[in-house]
């Protein structure tokens, strides 16, 4: 009855479609909040990493290394159970938002750091020589140039973040994967393994594929633009 071509199983999925919609909604909600948090952390720690201030650079480094070198599932469990046992349980979804935000914030921070690091030193110096302070320099001169470099890998992080909501399964989450799992193992709903995971996978794909396509499109136009700016000064010859 769990077969991929069993009409029975497909019908069951249709009857319980709200489960999948709820799972997708929870995954979306969690991803959206986690995303905001990770952008914020990525910007803050990315700026710290490029500030030239040794203590700030170290703090940023420690955050990034700690997060990147331990499993997300461990961080999720740590946050969830540490909070639960200290009597401050905040619920599964908020735990997921915070843990995913912190986890991907570390990766975003590296993306921001690389994006700022790619801007020639002369741009920082030009801004400083005009009398811009750190914030003005970043806001008007550096970040608008970095954003083109930052965007494609950042969108890839967004895709990863959406997929990583599935890790919530470990703390009994309410995300799409967890709900799919309870659906196929549930006493009254169980059995439709193949179709259920197919539907769940399709939902992920429908959300993630346009995003990763957008990322590679951006990446390509960026490369094209780079080629253009390299060629233009050589081919256009004007004498003033």
């Amino acid at each position: 009855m769990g077969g991929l071509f069993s009409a029975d199983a497909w019908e069951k999925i249709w009857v319980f479609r709200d489960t999948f919609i709820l799972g997708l909604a929870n995954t979306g909600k969690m991803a959206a909040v986690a995303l905001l948090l990770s952008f914020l952390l990525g910007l803050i720690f990315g700026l710290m990493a490029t500030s030239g201030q040794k203590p700030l650079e170290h703090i940023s480094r420690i955050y990034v290394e700690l997060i990147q070198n331990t499993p997300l599932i461990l961080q999720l469990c740590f946050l969830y159970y540490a909070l639960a046992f200290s009597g401050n349980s905040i619920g599964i979804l908020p735990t997921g938002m915070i843990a995913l935000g912190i986890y991907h914030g570390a990766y975003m921070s590296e993306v921001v750091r690389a994006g700022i690091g790619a801007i020639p030193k002369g741009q920082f110096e030009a801004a400083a020589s005009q009398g811009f302070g750190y914030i003005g320099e970043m806001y008007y001169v550096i970040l608008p140039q970095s954003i083109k470099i930052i965007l494609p890998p950042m969108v890839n992080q967004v895709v990863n973040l959406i997929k990583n909501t599935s890790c919530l399964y470990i703390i009994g989450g309410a995300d799409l994967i967890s709900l799919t799992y309870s659906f196929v193992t549930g006493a009254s709903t169980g059995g439709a393994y193949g179709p259920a995971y197919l539907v769940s996978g399709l939902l992920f794909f429908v959300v993630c594929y346009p995003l990763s396509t957008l990322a590679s499109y951006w990446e390509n136009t960026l490369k094209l633009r780079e080629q253009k700016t390299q060629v233009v000064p050589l081919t256009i010859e004007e004498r003033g």
Partner: protein
Amino acid sequence: MIRLEKINKFFGDLHVLQDVDLEVAEGEKLVIIGPSGSGKSTTVRCMNFLEEPTSGKVFINGEEMTSKNKTRMVRESTSMVFQQFNLYPHMTILKNLTLAPIKLYHKSKEEAEALAYHYLDIVGLREKAHVYPTTLSGGQQQRIAIARALCAQTKIILFDEPTSALDPETIQEVLDVMIKLAKENITMVVVTHEMGFAKEVADRIVFMDNGKIVEVGTPNEFFKNPSNERLKQFLGKIIR
């Protein structure tokens, strides 16, 4: 106007400036020459704290520059023209010229643009107001960079080898603009290898070697009968 007192600067173990004392009067055109690695760029970059001296003091109009007040002091008193132009590639020429006047000097957009067109006329590039820097030749970019420095309307403009990155055929157009500026009451400190320019506009010439000021004198003293042996050697290599 500018006073350097016993400036020492180390890059790691490298002692690039050794007890540099120098005073530049208001409206003076001071040209710094010397072999590469002699510390002439570092000297001029100490005047706006792009390089902070390891020891020694920098005074502008009698006020000592520190890492705390450098942003304000630089904004109020100095502008810089770089070897690599360092125009902002993500902005049109007009935006490049009006950014600092609008954001730092709180001029209205109309005022800032009028100012920008005024200086674009002086460097002869009014028709380039709406193009992006990468579409211009090196000489044109440098003339725009000079216009950008002028838009800040500071009393001091620092030139760090403004023609060293240019094609030989575009050097003169930049020098012509600088010669025109030299007739104004602007204090100019120019690091250059262009001896013709030095001869024509300099009130005094400073010769540096090995991080020290070796000789200071008028163009006449320098080129007619140089007394210093090292200076003779250097000029002999440059002027044929």
